[in-house]
C-alpha cells in the first residue's frame, strides 16, 4: 500500500518538476493568473460570508442569546440608523489579524458540534468565561474594534456630557484606560461582575 502511494507521489513530483510539453508558457502563466484570481477571490468571498450577521445568527446559540440581547441596545437601534453587526466588534478588519481570529474561532465550531452552550443554562454558566475572553482581547488590542468606528482623534469633547468629557479627556487620552475598561456590557448582558475590576 505504501509502495503504491509512494509511486503515485513520485510520479506527480516528476510531472511537476519537468517543463510542460503540450502547453505554452503564455497559457500556463495566464491560466495560473486567472485561477489565482478565482481562488483568491473565492477564498475572500467565503471569508466575508462567515462575517455576515446571517451566518453568525444561523446558530440558535447566537440567535437566542447574544443576538437577542443586542437588539435593545444602542448598537442595534438608534436615532441615526447606523448599526453594528457581530463581526464589526468581534472580528478584526485588518487581514492578518482577521485570519488569526478566524482560526481561533474554529474552536466555536467544535463547541457547536459538541453542544457546549446549546441551552440557555449552559450559556449562562459559561458566560463569565466567554466574556473574559472578549474583554482580554479588546484590552490587548487597545479596543481596536471600538475604534474602527469611534475614532479618538475626531471625538469632540464639547459635544459630550460633562462626565463623559472628563473621563475621555484624561484617562482615555493618556492611554491609561481603553474603551472596554469602562464600557462593558453595552451590547450584551453581563455575567456576575463580582470581582471584576471597576465593578463595586
Amino acid at each position: 500500500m505504501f509502495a503504491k502511494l509512494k509511486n503515485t507521489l513520485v510520479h506527480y513530483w516528476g510531472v511537476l518538476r519537468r517543463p510542460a510539453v503540450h502547453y505554452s508558457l503564455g497559457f500556463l502563466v495566464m491560466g495560473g493568473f486567472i485561477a489565482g484570481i478565482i481562488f483568491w477571490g473565492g477564498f475572500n468571498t467565503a471569508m466575508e460570508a462567515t462575517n455576515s450577521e446571517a451566518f453568525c445568527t444561523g446558530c440558535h446559540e447566537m440567535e437566542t442569546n447574544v443576538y437577542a440581547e443586542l437588539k435593545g441596545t444602542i448598537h442595534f437601534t438608534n436615532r441615526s440608523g447606523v448599526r453594528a453587526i457581530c463581526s464589526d466588534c468581534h472580528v478584526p478588519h485588518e487581514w492578518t489579524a482577521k485570519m488569526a481570529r478566524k482560526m481561533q474561532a474554529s474552536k466555536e465550531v467544535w463547541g457547536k458540534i459538541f453542544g457546549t452552550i446549546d441551552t440557555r443554562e449552559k450559556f449562562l454558566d459559561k458566560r463569565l468565561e466567554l466574556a473574559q475572553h472578549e474583554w482580554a482581547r479588546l484590552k490587548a488590542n487597545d479596543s481596536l474594534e471600538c475604534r474602527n468606528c469611534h475614532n479618538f482623534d475626531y471625538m469632540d469633547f464639547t459635544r459630550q456630557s460633562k462626565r463623559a468629557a472628563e473621563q475621555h479627556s484624561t484617562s482615555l487620552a493618556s492611554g491609561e484606560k481603553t474603551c472596554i475598561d469602562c464600557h462593558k456590557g453595552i451590547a450584551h448582558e453581563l455575567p456576575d461582575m463580582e470581582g471584576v475590576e471597576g465593578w463595586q
Partner: protein
Amino acid sequence: MKKLTTAVIVSLSVLVTGAVFAQNTATLRHGLSIEQDAEPDRMPVVQNDDIKRKRSYPMQPPTIPHKIDGYRVDTNSNKCLSCHSRNLSSDTQAPMVSVTHYMDRDGNFLASVSPRRYFCSQCHVVQTNAKPHVESDFVDLDDLLKAAQSKPKE
C-alpha cells in the same frame, strides 16, 4: 319586580354620575373617545447636565442629573455602583451613595450596599423636560416656616 326597579335606578344613577365625572377628568387620551387613537406625546428628553439639584426636603433621595440609558441593575451587575460605590467614587469623583445605604434596617453597618437599597431607581430617578400634567403646589419647608414666623401672633 321591586328589586329589578331598584337595580335599574341604581345602575342608571351610576352611569349618569360616571359620565359627569368623566367630562371633568384630565386623561392621557386628551378626552378622545375610546374608539379613537390619541396621538401620543413626544418622548421627553432626559436632563443630562450633571448639575446637582436642590432637594425639596432634607431626606429626599437626590434626583439623577444624567442619563441612565442601558444602565443595568440586576443580580449580576449594578452599573450605578460602578461609579457611586465607596470603593470606586474616588476614581470617578461621583458622589458616594449615602452611608444609610450601608446599613441594615436595624441600623447595623454592613460592608457593602444593603440588599434593600440595591435597586437605585426605586428612589432615585432622572428628570426630563416633560411638562407636568398637574401643577405641583408643594411648598418648601423653609417658606412654610418663614410664613409662620412673619405672621403676627394672636
